């Protein structure tokens, strides 16, 4: 704990920390009006926080990753369990609920099984004391919305080949069971932009995941796995996709207009209502854009797409370094 600063000589002035608490919006605006525009954290408006990544540090998960960007840190663990089709499979009725994305026609028929049978279970846990406002207990609306976005990202990008989740009968090549991947993201420390960190951790954990080789055992009518570590197989994740989130603040026409802040921290997220999220794919393509919370222009979104493309390269390099070419 730092010692208390000396009392101000002028009674009408107060330290920056008090200013930040009293008038958060003005505090951020003053920072951005300085030349060059600087955010309270010392970053420029278009500077992302430097990410760090570690994989496979957990012993009971089939794949895991720890991602840290600034003061936001998340741990993702992937664990496989077996869904056996032995019971009640013939007349399975799929009931799609309203608003649920239905069957998509796809030449490979991929994505359908994963979606319909719920083979991928993504969850985000924020009730870990990661920040002041989140308590243990049921997830907040925010945590639920982020969970749903992560889940949608995962299914929309079709990163997991359904083939690698099928468990076949060795004789008949018939699908007897499926792997179900439980993907759990635990937020250890939260300082804004949990989506980018959580998504990167999911992708890294999936790329590091190795499932044991499983086969259908006719005698026991169940799925049995080979214990040898050498027979563990990766999932064969296809492609890369990285999200980049932005917060937008309007300083007013005469004071510099709109400023787009890359990778906002908790304080900036609290002040700015306008948000943009871009998911960048390989080859400078875009997989997803989400914008809301303020009145803007298309040019703004295009600027975010550019920044997201740059950010993609940073993540790509980090993944190549940590996971190697195999990942």
């Amino acid at each position, binding site marked *: 704990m730092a010692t208390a600063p000396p009392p101000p000589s002028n009674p009408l002035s107060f330290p920056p920390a008090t200013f930040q608490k009293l008038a958060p919006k003005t505090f951020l605006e003053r920072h951005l009006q300085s030349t060059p525009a600087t955010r309270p954290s010392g970053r420029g408006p278009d500077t992302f926080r430097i990410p760090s990544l570690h994989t496979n540090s957990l012993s009971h998960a089939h794949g895991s990753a720890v991602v840290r960007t600034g003061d936001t840190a998340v741990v993702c663990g992937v664990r496989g369990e077996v869904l056996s089709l032995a019971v009640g499979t013939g007349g399975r009725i799929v009931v799609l609920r309203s608003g649920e994305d239905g069957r998509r026609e796809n030449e490979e028929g991929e994505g359908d099984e994963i979606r319909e049978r719920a083979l991928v279970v993504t969850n985000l846990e924020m009730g870990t004391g990661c920040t002041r406002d989140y308590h243990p207990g049921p997830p907040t609306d925010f945590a639920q919305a982020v969970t749903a976005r992560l889940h949608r990202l995962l299914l929309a990008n079709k990163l997991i080949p359904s083939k690698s989740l099928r468990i076949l009968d060795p004789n008949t090549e018939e699908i007897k069971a499926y792997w179900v991947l439980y993907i759990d993201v635990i937020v250890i420390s939260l300082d804004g932009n949990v989506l980018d960190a959580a998504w990167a951790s999911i992708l890294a954990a999936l790329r590091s995941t190795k499932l044991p080789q499983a086969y259908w055992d006719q005698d026991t009518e169940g799925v049995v796995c080979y214990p040898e570590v050498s027979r563990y197989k990766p999932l064969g994740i296809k492609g890369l996709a990285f999200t980049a989130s932005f917060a937008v603040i309007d300083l007013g026409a005469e004071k510099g207009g709109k400023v787009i802040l890359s990778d906002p921290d908790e304080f900036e997220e609290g002040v700015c209502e306008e948000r943009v999220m871009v998911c960048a794919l390989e080859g400078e393509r875009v997989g997803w854009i989400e914008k809301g919370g303020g009145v803007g*222009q298309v040019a703004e979104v295009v600027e975010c797409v550019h920044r997201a493309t740059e950010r993609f390269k940073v993540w790509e390099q980090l993944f190549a370094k940590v996971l190697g070419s195999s990942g």
Partner: protein
Amino acid sequence: MADGSAQYTDGPTTLLASINGPIEVKPRDEIPLEAYLEITIRPSAGVTSVREKHLEALLRSAISPLIIRTVHPRTLLQITLQIIQHEQVSVAHTLHTLLASAVVVVVLALVDAGVPMKGMLAAAFVEEANRSAAHVFGYAVTGGGGGPGEGLVFVESDGAFDEKEFVEASEIGRKKCLEVGELMKDWIRGKVGRDMKYRLK
């Protein structure tokens, strides 16, 4: 009895929105200088799930910039959207079509309830010809920053596309939004005309 409501049918989709407010707010949710916005989406069958919370968050980000919340500080504005029917016929992106209709019906209900707003928002669903991408654009059609169709409020795009395709799609979306906006204005004109009939006699 709600303060305002609207029902909207677009092909296979039927939605009902109701607005209550300004009403008393729970002390926990009270905001000193603004009204608290509560958005609830009820599915046509079953209980709410993570998916509805996601839709609620998207809907909130679409409509909240147009509502002037400082007029009724320390109150609650309650928006409830009941999905009566929403089936996917052939369209792959059902979430997008739902979202576009939801924005329209909620804005109409807000106008009906007399909630102070900066302008009206229209949303349109745009799909690439080869189904590689789907977009929902929300443009302000009156007020809300510049002239009609100038303020881009909301985007939800999904698929695989590049910058050029996105800009093209946004232009199509803008035109569609202006069309939808004219329809919305017509509906409101008709509604006001009927309500005010006794005065015009």
